[in-house]
């Protein structure tokens, strides 16, 4: 039987005067690639924040079979990698791309110990995998948005997580870079045998290994099923309250915004 990595039972996030998440139930199995889709304000990022341990909630959350709260052990935190939306880094900020990747190993190494040669080589290998090894000695703030996101993914993978949370990792990137980042995420999923939760609102830019989708609207889960069932005009029009149609090309389904 496949191990259940993540379980949410009746999880609610209440911030006066509204509910950001309302009674969400979710079961994620090991090595699943799950998409979390919904319009702005649907509760996608809140859901990721609850799982990452940043947001107070009511209900029950289990990670790797253990009930968890906001206060988590270092060991549990390390097992959950987190890639936030692209955030600004000042061009002057004193951190190089390689150093930013190495911050992913700090928790793993623990207090009063320094990362060794093994960890540095591992970081470089991941940067090579994410096609940013040539930027290792460049200040992070001087990299493009796409390059910074690849560095961010390499940093999260260096943590050696079992569950990877990706919060709209391709937002604000141009189309070619979005496609490249998605291909790299697919590659990581296969090579590292991870479980991935991928938040997005762009259906035409989905990783090819994503098979299951959860749809959120106004903090409620309104759909949980295969990506084929999700990408229908009827389901998406209902989700976004806007007429949407889908069409097929090369065996893949795409959304037309009309």
């Amino acid at each position, binding site marked *: 039987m496949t191990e259940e990595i993540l379980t949410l039972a009746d999880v609610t996030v209440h911030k006066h005067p509204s509910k950001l998440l309302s009674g969400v139930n979710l079961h994620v199995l090991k090595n699943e690639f799950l998409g979390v889709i919904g319009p702005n304000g649907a509760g996608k990022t809140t859901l990721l924040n609850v799982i990452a341990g*940043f947001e107070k909630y009511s209900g029950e959350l289990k990670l790797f079979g253990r009930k968890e709260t906001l206060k988590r052990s270092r060991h549990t935190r*390390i097992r959950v990698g987190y890639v936030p939306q692209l955030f600004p880094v000042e*061009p002057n900020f004193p951190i190089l791309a390689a150093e930013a990747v190495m911050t992913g190993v*700090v928790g793993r190494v623990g*207090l009063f110990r320094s990362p060794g040669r093994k960890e540095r080589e591992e970081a470089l290998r991941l940067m090579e995998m994410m096609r940013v090894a040539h930027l290792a000695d460049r200040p992070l703030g001087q990299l493009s948005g796409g390059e910074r996101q690849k560095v961010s993914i390499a940093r999260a993978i260096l943590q050696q997580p079992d569950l990877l949370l990706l919060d709209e990792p391709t937002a604000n990137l141009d189309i070619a870079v979005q496609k490249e980042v998605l291909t790299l995420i697919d590659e990581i999923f296969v090579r590292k045998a991870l479980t991935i939760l991928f938040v997005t609102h762009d259906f035409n830019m989905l990783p090819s290994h994503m098979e299951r989708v959860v749809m959120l609207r106004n903090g409620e889960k309104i759909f949980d099923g295969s990506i084929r069932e999700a990408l229908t005009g009827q389901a998406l029009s209902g989700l976004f309250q806007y007429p949407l149609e889908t069409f097929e090309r090369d065996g893949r389904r795409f959304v037309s915004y009309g």
Partner: protein
Amino acid sequence: MEGALYRMVDPFLNILSYPPIQRAVIACVLCGAGCSVLSVFVVLMKMPLIGVSMSHAAFAGAVLGLLLGMNPFLSGLMLCLLVAAVLGPLSDRTDIAPENVLGIVFSFLMGIAFLGMGILTQTKAGALNLMWGSLLNLSETDIWVLAVVTAVLILFVVLFFKEIRAVLFNRRIAASGGVPERMIYYILLFLTGAVVSSNLSTVGGLLIFALLVQPGATALQLTYNLKSFFWISAASGIFACVLGLAASYLFDIPSGASVALTATFLFALAFIFSPKRRQNQLSERKPMP
């Protein structure tokens, strides 16, 4: 030539033989080192308002100490630690803008400080010294307190350097990776309180703010390496303090003011000759490929 040099240096060498001047120079080095190490955090974590609030907490606490007949350093430190304990959890809350929290705390502390000064029945000189600092009236105990606090701060940076780098880069990402970011942040707030209150007697509660921002801002113009950042910040802080003290002696001006002005002058030099700024300007001018 040698004679001219001797005539220039001799007055300084003579005056250095006096114990109050020796203590002032040692205090300048310790104050410059401690404040400038803190300024790395203040500048990179964009928390100058925390620096202002802590310096005013120390000042208000010390004035209250004078009112209640307590040791001003201890009362300043106690109020600083209390403010740190309040500011930490409040700035972590997502439903209140941190700037508003700091604005409220800062104005409250200013109110307490000036109320205390208003009702102080004894001479105001003691309170004014806490505001401007009084480098020439330091006791040996003041120097020891300053030395211990500065040493603890430097030890904190050395022991937790990799965690500090992760927290400076992004607190949330650090937390997600198993870094005890809250512990690092809270220790930092408490150390800010300790450094600021131990420096009330050197540069004072108002002018210390210059040393909590300018050395870090100076280093930001010059390096991308965090270790060098700490070194450059510390060097510019110490240099500003010692040069400021020498200028105060030479031109007979208040020492706190001359330290603050020297720190600003060093920042201006770093800004004008910043290799990072020139590099950024060049890359902006390059035509798109």
